[in-house]
């Protein structure tokens, strides 16, 4: 009798093993996964800040004094259109029919300097696909510098690479218009300051 029961149990186990074995394996794998130690990544809260500081000093050393002051005070820079190819050499920058506002990690906005009419948004990024981990975005000031270099060095290539949209796709046109107004106020203040310092210099 006992032998018969044991034999039946063995046969039953053998028949059920196809069902039970995978469940046991899964339970064991879950148990091991729960107990596995996750390698800790040392978080450095100052890393991005230090990168941004280096990027700011690089930007400052590359762009002109006015562009740097504009970025420092307003948070964006203006690049005259058609500057690549030497038109700026001929003094044409200030008569450019269009210009760009360059924001960090935001679309480039083309506008008419004389009327402040917004023309287009150019969405462009500089992703670093070689980065094995972490943030693939450049620091803010590096992003601005990359756009400045690409616009002043090879405007056509950058613009043909970018995705073009009508104004308002990502940036609020009212905000951009306010930025243009802020920039004109900022330029007037700089001109007044320069004029007053000249008067002081030439005073007897």
């Amino acid at each position, binding site marked *: 009798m006992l032998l018969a029961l044991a034999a039946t149990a063995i046969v039953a186990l053998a028949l059920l093993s196809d069902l039970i074995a995978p469940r046991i394996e899964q339970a064991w794998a879950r148990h091991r996964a729960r107990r596995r130690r996750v390698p800790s990544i040392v978080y450095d809260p100052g890393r*991005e800040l230090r990168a941004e500081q280096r990027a700011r000093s690089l930007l400052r050393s590359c762009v002109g004094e006015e562009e740097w002051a504009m970025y420092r005070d307003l948070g964006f820079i203006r690049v005259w259109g058609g500057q690549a190819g030497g038109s700026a050499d001929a003094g044409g920058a200030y008569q450019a029919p269009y210009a760009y506002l360059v924001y960090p990690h935001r679309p480039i906005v083309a506008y008419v300097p004389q009327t402040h009419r917004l023309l287009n948004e150019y969405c462009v990024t500089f992703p670093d696909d070689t980065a094995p981990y972490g943030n693939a975005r450049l620091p803010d000031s590096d992003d601005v510098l990359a756009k*400045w270099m690409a616009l002043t060095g090879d405007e056509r290539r950058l613009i043909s690479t970018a995705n073009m949209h009508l104004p308002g796709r990502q940036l609020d046109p009212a905000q951009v218009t306010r930025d243009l107004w802020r920039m004109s106020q900022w330029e007037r203040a700089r001109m007044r300051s320069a004029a007053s310092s000249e008067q002081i210099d030439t005073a007897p």
Partner: protein
Amino acid sequence: MKPGHGEVPIAEGDLETAEDEERLIDEFRRQLDAGLWAAVPLTARAGQRQARMVRSFDEIPRDADRVIFFPRAAGGG
């Protein structure tokens, strides 16, 4: 330029030294082969600052003090 790092010096050297020049050319090619763009910031004749995009080592002005490599542009959303 590198995400999370900002400016990272890659190579330095004197173009007047043949050994340095060869090393700089190799590094220049390596960066461009990795898909980066290269630019030289310079001052235009009118005194305005601008950049020159360079695609070969010969295009770098001999008096340039640096070449900046940065990720290639791509269309964004």
